[in-house]
């Protein structure tokens, strides 16, 4: 189903990736970090897609016992299933983004290095 059905002269993969006109902001001092983050985020997205595909297969196996590719492509979760998948995706995102989220939490507390705490404990 995902195979190209478009005229051969249209390079849909190449064209889909065209850059938008307008200078892209540089978010990091080293441009390699900008590139690496883009790759990381694309992979993060694709893992989420694979997990959802697995979930689809499992749900179909539960109800049908056997699954065709067409079943997968046509699958639409009911409201409860959609919510469960939403929660799974949310929890997955929370796991991937843990470092960013905890750096945000850390901003709110003034902490000394654990090495210092360790020295203090010796005397406590």
């Amino acid at each position, binding site marked *: *189903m*995902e195979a*190209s*059905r*478009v*005229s051969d002269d*249209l390079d*849909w*993969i190449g*064209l*889909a*990736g*065209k*850059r*938008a*006109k*307008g200078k*892209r*902001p540089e*978010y*990091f001092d080293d441009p390699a970090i*900008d590139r690496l*983050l*883009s790759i990381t*985020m*694309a992979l*993060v*997205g694709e893992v*989420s*897609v694979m997990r*959802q*595909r697995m979930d*689809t297969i499992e749900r179909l196996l539960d109800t049908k016992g056997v699954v065709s590719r067409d079943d*997968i*492509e046509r*699958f*639409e*979760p009911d*409201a409860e299933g*959609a*919510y469960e*998948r*939403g*929660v799974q*995706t*949310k929890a997955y*995102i*929370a796991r991937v*983004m843990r470092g*960013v*989220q905890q*750096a*945000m939490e850390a*901003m*709110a507390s003034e902490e000394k290095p654990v090495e210092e705490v360790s020295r203090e404990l010796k005397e406590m």
Partner: protein
Amino acid sequence: MKHDVAPPYTAVARHAVFPDPSHDEAARFDFLANFNKYMSTTLGPGNKRAYDIRILPAFEKEHGRAPADRFEIRRAMNKDPWHRFWSALKRNSMEMRQQNGRQMVLRQLDQLDGKVRQFNEGRDTLWLDPAVAVPRYQQAVDIHCMPGSYHGEERPGDVSAGANYDCGIFATTAGGLGALSDGGGMALVDWIKRERPGWTPRRILDLGCTIGHNIVPLALAFPDTEIIAIDTAAPALRYGHARAQALGARNLHFVQMNAEDMSAYPDGHFDWVQTTMYLHELSGTALPRIIKEGARVLAPGGLMFHLEQPQYSDAMPLYEQFIRDWDAFNNNEPFWSSMHALDLKSLIIEAGFPADSLFTTGVRAVVDETIFPTANAGDGEDHGRAAYWNAYGAWKPAA
């Protein structure tokens, strides 16, 4: 605990010209919708925290005063490692939305163009005029990081720009605009039915309609009204016309025209002239011209209505102005910042409306709340994309 999650992409309405998503294409949008929600609700407050805890104190120490405007805050925040990382993530999410949407649309472009042709050929409700140029202010950058903007074509006469725009609004708003991404238009219907019960305008004009999301609900609510929707972008109009026809809005005409010059219409031709989320995509000279042209073609007793995110004012904290400006500099919305600082009321008065004919009102997206989220304004708001707007309007005095 009931978790706040985005609705599934499979709940997005597939009207007759909507691209057909594969399982994984839908899953990509599911990821982005939930990721954007996470970015605004869980991580978004981190920007304010960085500002309060380190950026503002450092600024005050260095300058002996608080920041004077949103630009000073932006320059200071752009040095903060946490804000930079958040911005980089968000920029990537916007770029991924574009590539995902374009892959889905372009791989089935033959079918899409064919379906659209069936709805467009031989209909007198679509008027394209190749003489209408892409406005200069639309050529500066590709708006919202959409490669090719609203005007781009991958081959002559295609609908890729319109279809890509339609299919991805779900992701950037995390489903906040409903199954047809028309929560704004539905809100207009809801508002006017309460404001003027029983009123049936003879003609309505929608400026900068793109693919007609927000005008189709009005066309369906007022089936006896003649409705004209104009835009300069042919690919958006082609798609929008087919979409409207597929949804049964037969009283809706799509016309390729620049709103700066609507001399095709006589004075006082329309009972209602409106824009939805359009003014911020213009320019400093185009915006007042368009407001004036809109006022000219509006009939005495008629309604002028402009729906936008809230304007910046002295009452709005500078930090909020700064974060609302994020899209201006990170998502190719180059007029966003200066437009939101304009005094829209004065511009409407300059266009000939008496001050006491003006009003502003808050408008919240109207969606099927059993599936789609209610618009939230406040801490977890995704500034710039929240499904909650301000309407700046005026009733033209009767002659």
